[in-house]
């Protein structure tokens, strides 16, 4: 049976080199969408991920000052702010989407942040289920 607990990861092509085994500790269905640059991630992409069943959306871009398009991850961060405002209006916890600045070409940093995000979303899910 397919795991209904889904986490969507929207990321820049250069921030995610993690392999399936790097994310093996995450007991959720992980859906990774790669973009040529995190600056290309739109608010609509984030909202769509929720509509398609994600319980949390991790947005990952290059660490500040390292984006080769200069401001890509800064733009992504702003889009996360916009998406959070929309989620709040829809009475969905805004912290279900979060921006992560990740070291370029470092699978370890990416995997750690993904696990950290998963734990936070799991906590939100458990809280919701006990209410």
């Amino acid at each position, binding site marked *: 049976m397919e795991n209904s607990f889904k986490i969507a990861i929207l990321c820049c092509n250069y921030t995610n080199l993690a392999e399936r085994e790097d994310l093996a500790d995450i007991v959720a269905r992980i859906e990774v969408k790669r973009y040529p640059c995190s600056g290309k991630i739109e608010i609509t992409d984030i909202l769509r991920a929720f509509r398609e069943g994600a319980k949390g959306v991790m947005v990952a871009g290059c660490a500040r000052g390292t984006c080769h398009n200069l401001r890509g991850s800064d733009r992504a961060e702003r889009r996360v702010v916009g998406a959070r405002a929309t989620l709040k*209006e*829809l009475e969905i916890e805004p912290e279900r989407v979060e921006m992560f600045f990740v070291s370029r070409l470092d699978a370890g940093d990416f995997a750690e942040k993904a696990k950290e995000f998963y734990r936070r979303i799991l906590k939100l899910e458990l809280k919701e289920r006990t209410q």
Partner: protein
Amino acid sequence: MIIAERRPLSEILKNIEAYERIMVLGCRGCVAICSAGGDREVAILAEALRLGREKKGKPVQVLEETFIRQCDPEYLEPLKDIKDKVEAVVSLACGVGVNLIADLYPDIRVYPGVDTTFYGANLSLGEWVEKCRGCGDCIIDLTAGLCPIARCAKNLLNGPCGGSQRGRCEVKAEMPCIWHEIVERLTKRGELERLLEIWTAKDWRPAGGDGLRTRFREDLLDS
């Protein structure tokens, strides 16, 4: 430009509650420039409405469209056939667009997706400030180009008022006192005595007090 702001999603969702197929209609005029109703905002609102309705277990189909303008009849013509395709339209144009759709296409249920707020300037990314009230009887030739009707909280024609403190407005401390600026600017230009002139009473009829405002330019009118 005309500045607008998206209405709360709860209001829009309430307006479309009864429908299963709607259209979000943007405008590439002022509302696109002020990031309230252009292509990108259409996509965001459409996705937000879909998500909001999914959450309520009552999915809605949302078509997305953006017209060049919604304040000219010819650009609205594609709406002729729209009532067969959707049950309602949420327009992200300013109130002008919504009204014109309602006037020209009475069979279409059109709802405003934005609140039309003011005429303003885009000072920096994400920041818009009112500069004109559209009162129809411009006096800024007398006030160094700075409008006290739009930019004074009390719309004073003779200021600064007693509440002006160190160049700031007493109503909103973050707002400069525009009369303070007018006096400073005219002083600097050596034109302060202009304020001693007795102005004729301001005509408020063009501000809307005389009913619906219209403008005709005879050389352009179809005979």
